[in-house]
């Protein structure tokens, strides 16, 4: 288990991370979210040992975390690859640095290149690959040595929808294998599909922290979504109900489920037929925007 307690980092007068605490167990995914400069990367770099904390502690299975006592797989936000090297040579180098033998690393490289459907790139220079394919190589470098702790900083950056889906499947597989995963991303829709626990950071402070479901439950606001075919806009204007038109739907933000049902009752009484509607919890993105801004 990864445990972070009262973690802080101060750069001169600026507090980059302030008293941050969270725990991530085996097979769990933790979402570290926030705008640029919120303290996500600093937190990740402290976990990796790249930046020395000003205070607090980071432990893995109860002992202070260090290279020797945990296999970490790190996918940086920007590509961290030797662009003048051949893909196979560079991955072999990374694998061996993690203690893998020649045969073991060779087998793992072939497995992952085939898994991501790019075996032909093994002998190519990294610089000759597209941004998306470089991201795939970066993911292989992250998972090659079967890490216990996987840290993914903006894993979907530069990927097209198809490759995003491929990445999402691989990440799900790693979670299923019992890996401890920390994920930082601006893609709230993608993160929401994986994370169980989340922290929303703002200027180094945890604005919201805890189970994603509990956070959503704690938000009373619900989204009442009515299909486009419902002729409701005139009724809402007459009743003074705020609404917005989102794509082809009409969206009404309501305080809770009962208020939503009251709105639907009002429509029924007015004789307006509503063929379809949804009463949903707020999305992670909505919570993010509201709390982090």
């Amino acid at each position, binding site marked *: 288990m990864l445990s972070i307690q009262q973690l802080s980092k101060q750069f001169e007068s600026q507090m980059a991370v302030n008293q941050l605490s969270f725990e991530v167990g085996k097979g769990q995914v933790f979402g570290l979210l926030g705008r640029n400069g919120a303290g996500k990367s600093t937190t990740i770099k402290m976990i*990796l040992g790249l930046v020395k904390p000003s205070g607090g502690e980071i432990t893995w299975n109860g002992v202070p975390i260090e290279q020797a006592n945990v296999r970490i797989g*790190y996918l*940086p936000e920007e590509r961290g*690859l*030797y662009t003048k090297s051949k893909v196979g040579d560079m991955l072999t*180098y*990374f694998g061996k640095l993690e203690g893998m033998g020649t045969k073991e690393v060779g087998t793992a490289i072939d497995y992952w290149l085939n898994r991501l459907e790019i075996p032909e790139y093994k002998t190519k220079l990294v610089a000759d690959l597209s941004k998306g394919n470089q991201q795939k190589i970066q993911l292989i470098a992250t998972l090659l040595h079967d890490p216990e702790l996987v840290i993914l900083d903006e894993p979907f950056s530069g990927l097209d929808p198809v490759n995003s889906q491929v990445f999402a499947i691989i990440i799900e597989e790693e979670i299923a294998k019992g890996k401890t995963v920390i994920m930082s991303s601006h893609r709230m829709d993608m993160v929401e599909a994986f994370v169980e626990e989340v922290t929303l950071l703002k200027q180094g402070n945890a604005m919201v922290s805890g189970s994603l479901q509990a956070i959503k439950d704690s938000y009373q606001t619900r989204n009442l979504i009515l299909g486009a075919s419902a002729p409701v806009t005139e009724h809402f204007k007459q009743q003074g109900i705020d609404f917005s038109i989102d794509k082809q739907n009409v969206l009404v933000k309501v305080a809770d489920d009962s208020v939503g049902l009251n709105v639907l009752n009002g429509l029924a009484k007015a004789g307006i037929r509503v063929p379809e509607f949804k009463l949903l919890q707020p999305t992670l993105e909505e919570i993010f925007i509201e709390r982090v801004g």
Partner: protein
Amino acid sequence: MRKFGLVFWFHFKESITGKKALISGLVLFVISLGFFGATHWFSQQEGEQYLMAVVQDSGAFVVDLNTLNSVSPDIGFEALGLEEARQSLESGEVDTVFVIEGEEIPTLKTLSERGSHSTAEFIVTQELSHQYLARVMEQEDISPELLQSLLSPVAVTHETFENMEEFFLNFAISWVVGMALYMVVATSGTMIGTSVMNEKASRVMEVMISKVRPTTIMYAKILSNLASVMVTSLMLYVGYLAASVLGWADMEQLAFFGGAVDFASVDPMIWVLAVAYFILGYLVYGMFFAMAGALCTKVEDYQSVAAPITISLMIPFFAMMWGLTDGIFGSIATYIPLFSPFITFSRFADGTAGYTEVGITLVLLLISILLIGKLATKIYTGGVMHYSEKASFKDIRKLLKG
């Protein structure tokens, strides 16, 4: 140690198989082969005979051409009339025309395009002097013994406090070591700096530092560059081997400032110190270049940051080359870690510095390498949170604080 080996081997392999190394190796091969080829060609040219014309305009003094031609196989003399000799000179058939004149005392006039052939002129004047002396002896009735006594040269003997042969040898070795260190640092220093800078700019350092200690990365990178330059330099030897196969190589043509050098007779302690100063000198400069790379993310910024290091390399090198290792400069430079691999070693080789200076400077070099290595590593590691183009002094202070 395993990780050091892995990092060393990866960077060594990358640099030795890179285009830059392949082109450098090819250039060194061509230079080596070209040198021996040119030397061989010139030595063959030297075998050709230079032709001289002799115009005998004196009735009293007539030189014997057979005598002149027997002196040197490289120089031939033939008797010609003045006009014919002039035409031969203009057409380039002869190098110099010697016109012998005078009836009482012989005089020699030379005609040439850019100056007379000095050896040929010496041969002709010697022959004329002999004839003149024989005539005077006969006229004045001087015995050969008296003449020999009159012409006896003043005996001069040279005595020096130093063994000049040893002095020359030690000067040669300090020159060779200094030149090798300068060339290797000048070549690989930029490679080290830009390699560190590229790792930082491409963010691969973030991945690397989480796998390997930064100090290991630094030392492995610096030493792999040294190994790569050494292997590339082997192409000079391959060039020599190729020249040997072609029959061009003649090691006797190799000379140091005109003199032959027998490196086998060098004091073993000089060799030990040569290796020690070379490796420590390389490491101290390598660390400085690595630190310069860790401060930048763009090549143009790196060049300005690395410029003072390059100047610090040139000062002791040229001071050593020009023999400016004595006096106050030499005494101070002896103890400056960046200068001592050139100055102190040179002074030890020529006998003006002793084991005390050597011991102190080697310790200072070791301390400097460890200290600069620590600073470079700290700046390199601190760089994961600092991606601005070039670090200011304020930034450096921040990086060192961590």
